[in-house]
């Protein structure tokens, strides 16, 4: 293998295929990837993975893939799909991961926009989806699939299995060797286009963000140094392939540091797999942490009295001292001892249950995390930190250094990143990770990226007295009520979403007289509560409209109003009225993005009638809503939604403060 290393550029590897060659020699026998299949973990070392990728890549070239070709990668986190990235890049082709759960119409736009000539799919579902679009996909020449189940009877024309392509590669190596392939890799330069990632489209059509090898590799190297990550880490790859976070954590950083990436059997087993792997580096959006905490809370309520008491006792103790111990602040001997006991009885088993036993660093990003949720995990000794990033920055803009953690901030600028706050409060940054541009969209590129490399984030924020960046909201979402008081919808929604019973909230108020909200109940948590209180229900809709659920929501909203009233800036935007939506907000209906963010304008459009009802004083409203099922068919649900008034408090109110 060492002969291969000699082909690398003198100043070290710049592209991921070059890193692969290096890793196959320096970490030859260390695990590079694991995959659980049929209930058993299979591993590949770096040298084995090198072979797999080499066969596949040469097979691809035999199939006619050339430098500059665009290859769509559709599916969940599977080793072969990760290998496809590197195999394509080795030939100078550009991989384009696509969200596996996007419906056909969404996919067609991306594949056509990117002019994809080859699609690598995980299974029959994805192959079917692409085949159903084949009339519209003019440039698409062939499809490669990973899992053959159900595909035996398909027309084999232009449809190949992963193994077939690898066999092609094997034959080619026997016939002519792999010298050309290696030469091609050696030619790779840092400023070549590495990958195109389509943004999830919070605003309008998805845009193709072009990232170079330098963007990704330098960002990855900096991040690895920042958190002291090396080849001994293990991470679980479970977030969408098409999301920049997964691409950087599970691909770029892994190739640069040489650490092992573990792929779960399927999405539903991810949690179980995490427990088995006990990753040392873990990333999850706040939602995942919220769901875990909700599950813990629900399970503890079902536990016996003794366990409940023990849990409460030690969690209270952890709440007081856990974070201090984690931050290395002085804590008395007795309290340390008690924390240690708690570790033995509660925190340790809990972390084991969650699969966090081996964790070195955990990150959350994407949206603000509820301070209580954040503190909960830190208090049980999990080094959970926040970072702020964007696809356009190859993720890293700012991150919290160890020991300087707060729930409100997103940390200091990452290595090599400069941050500036514009006059209108918008955050700007410049870094080695800054993208090349949007594919075929110079207008958007020019409005986002200035000539000297500064990027507009679109987020409003400020630098606090510790030098940490704080994000308030999307710059364009921060608005004003008619009486002039500040209205930051996300701030209010996040406060609501902290309640385990509330899954999603959408606040309205910009340019109106008062603030009103839509709520989505959390079916797990409220369902459990209903079970314990003998409330029977047949569907989400029925439970959501139940009077006692409304009463519970009213209490939650009032609690939020109390908190809002205690802050002068926010007291004006207390919630006057709310309703519980008759259906869950769903990415399939376009109400959430694929990363589960609320699409505000879309919701305002779709539920216009309900918003009017919130403001015209009516107490209920009949609505009919179209829903899209997973297979793309459409149906309708209708309901009479009740609207509820809530008490608001004056700023500095004694009763509210109590």
């Amino acid at each position, binding site marked *: 293998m060492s002969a291969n290393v000699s082909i690398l550029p003198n100043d070290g590897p710049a592209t991921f295929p070059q890193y692969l060659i290096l890793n196959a020699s320096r970490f030859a026998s260390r695990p590079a990837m694991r995959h659980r*299949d049929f209930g058993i973990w299979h591993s590949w070392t770096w040298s084995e993975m090198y072979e797999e990728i080499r066969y596949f890549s040469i097979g691809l070239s035999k199939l006619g893939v050339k430098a500059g070709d665009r290859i769509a990668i559709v599916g969940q986190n599977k080793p072969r799909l990760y290998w496809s990235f590197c195999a394509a890049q080795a030939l100078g082709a550009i991989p384009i991961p696509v969200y596996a759960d996007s419906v056909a119409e969404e996919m067609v736009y991306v594949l056509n926009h990117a002019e994809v000539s080859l699609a690598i799919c995980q299974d029959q579902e994805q192959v079917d989806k692409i085949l159903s679009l084949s009339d519209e996909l003019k440039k698409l020449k062939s499809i490669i699939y990973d899992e053959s189940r159900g595909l035996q009877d398909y027309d084999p024309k232009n449809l190949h299995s992963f193994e077939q392509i690898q066999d092609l590669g094997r034959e080619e190596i026997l016939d002519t060797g792999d010298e050309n392939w290696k030469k091609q890799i050696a030619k790779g330069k840092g400023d070549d286009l590495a990958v195109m990632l389509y943004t999830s489209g919070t605003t309008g059509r998805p845009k193709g963000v072009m990232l170079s090898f330098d963007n990704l590799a330098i960002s990855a190297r900096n991040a690895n140094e920042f958190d002291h990550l090396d080849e001994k880490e293990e991470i679980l790859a479970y977030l969408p392939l098409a999301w920049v976070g997964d691409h950087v954590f599970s691909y770029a950083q892994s190739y640069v540091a040489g650490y092992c990436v573990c792929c779960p059997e399927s999405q539903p087993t991810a949690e179980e797999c995490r427990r088995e792997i006990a990753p040392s580096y873990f990333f999850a959006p706040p939602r995942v942490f919220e769901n875990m905490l909700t599950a813990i809370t629900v399970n503890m309520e079902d536990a016996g009295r003794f366990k409940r008491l023990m849990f409460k006792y030690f969690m209270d103790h952890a709440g007081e001292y856990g974070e201090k111990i984690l931050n290395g602040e002085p804590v008395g001997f007795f309290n340390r001892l008690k924390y240690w006991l708690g570790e033995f009885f509660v925190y340790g088993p809990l972390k084991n249950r969650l699969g966090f036993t081996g964790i070195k660093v955990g990150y959350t990003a994407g949206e603000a995390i509820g301070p209580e949720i954040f503190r909960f995990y830190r208090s049980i000794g999990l080094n959970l930190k926040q970072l702020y990033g964007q696809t356009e920055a190859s993720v890293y803009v700012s991150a919290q250094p160890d020991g300087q953690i707060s729930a409100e901030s997103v940390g200091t600028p990452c290595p090599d990143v400069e941050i500036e706050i514009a006059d209108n409060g918008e955050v700007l940054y410049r870094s080695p990770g800054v993208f090349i541009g949007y594919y075929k969209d110079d207008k958007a590129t020019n409005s986002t990226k200035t000539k000297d490399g500064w990027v507009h984030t679109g987020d409003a924020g400020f630098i606090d007295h510790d030098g940490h960046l704080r994000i308030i909201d999307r710059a364009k979402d921060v608005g004003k009520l008619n009486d002039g008081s500040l209205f930051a919808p996300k701030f209010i929604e996040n406060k609501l979403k902290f309640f385990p019973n509330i899954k999603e909230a959408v606040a309205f108020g910009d340019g109106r007289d008062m603030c009103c909200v839509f709520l989505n109940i959390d079916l797990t948590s409220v369902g459990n509560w209903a079970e314990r209180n003998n409330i029977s229900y047949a569907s989400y809709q029925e439970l959501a409209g139940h009077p006692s659920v409304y009463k519970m929501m009213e209490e939650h909203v009032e609690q939020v109003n109390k908190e809002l009233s205690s802050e002068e800036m926010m007291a004006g935007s207390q919630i006057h009225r709310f309703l519980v939506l008759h259906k869950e907000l769903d990415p399939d209906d376009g109400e959430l993005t694929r990363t589960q963010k609320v699409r505000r304008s879309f919701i305002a459009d779709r539920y216009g009638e309900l918003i009017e009802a919130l403001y015209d004083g009516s107490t209920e409203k009949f609505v009919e809503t179209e829903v899209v099922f997973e297979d793309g068919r459409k149906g309708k649900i209708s309901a009479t939604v009740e609207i509820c008034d809530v008490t608001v408090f004056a700023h500095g109110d004694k009763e509210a403060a109590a």
Partner: protein
Amino acid sequence: MNMHYSSAGGAHRDNLAKGETLLQVDNISLSFGGVKAIQDVSFDIKKGEIRAIIGPNGAGKTSMLNVINGFYHPQEGTITFRGKERRRMRPHVAAQQGISRTFQNIALFKGMSVLDNIMTGRMTLQKRNMLWHALWHGPAQMEELEHRAAVEKIIDFLEIEAIRKTPSGRLPYGLQKRVELGRALAAEPALLLLDEPMAGMNLEEKEDMSRFILDVNHQFGTTIALIEHDMGVVMDLSDRVMVLDYGRKIGDGTPDDVRKNRDVIDAYLGVSHDD
């Protein structure tokens, strides 16, 4: 990733080609005291088809299934399975011959994990006796590993990886039904009897189950006989349908034939007609 599950009856290989008669039921009558559950019913099941048995409540559908797998012994008539005629047979013999079934009311071991439940489906395929299994090391262990591999393939096939180790009693109804199907499949049956596989399910669960039934038939070539009340499902899934009413056969044929059959319409709607 590739399925190596042996197709066409798996462990119970036979020389029948697709479309040949796998099971022939001739003039079966079954009564319990004065109650005539089945009266003089004849029909056949062809290899590789999905055969539905439908009828109103109490028509004798489940009794028919019980007769086929040897749980009830008919007073009259013969059953020919793979060319061998039989009159009396114990259920375990039927299981050994390659007939497995699921039940109308779920009959899983509630305290056992999904994996163990499906493992019990391999019982009839175990070659080593109890002594070997008590010793465990050596041949019995090798055998168990083989069975475990087969079970894992079924788990993968039915997409129940996430509940592999969950006690089956804790699962929602729809999943328990799926586990039951898994256990029946574990025996690698030549003939799979499904007693109301979709009863009590919601639409999504029904769609899932229909998909799995079609996949089992398509991919493993397993012959399936099913009882089902949901007419939409029956008409979509099955190749041929037999209709029972008060223990008598009143219709038999393709879904389209049966749908047009006047007797069948009457039996289901209960209306009299003049013509």
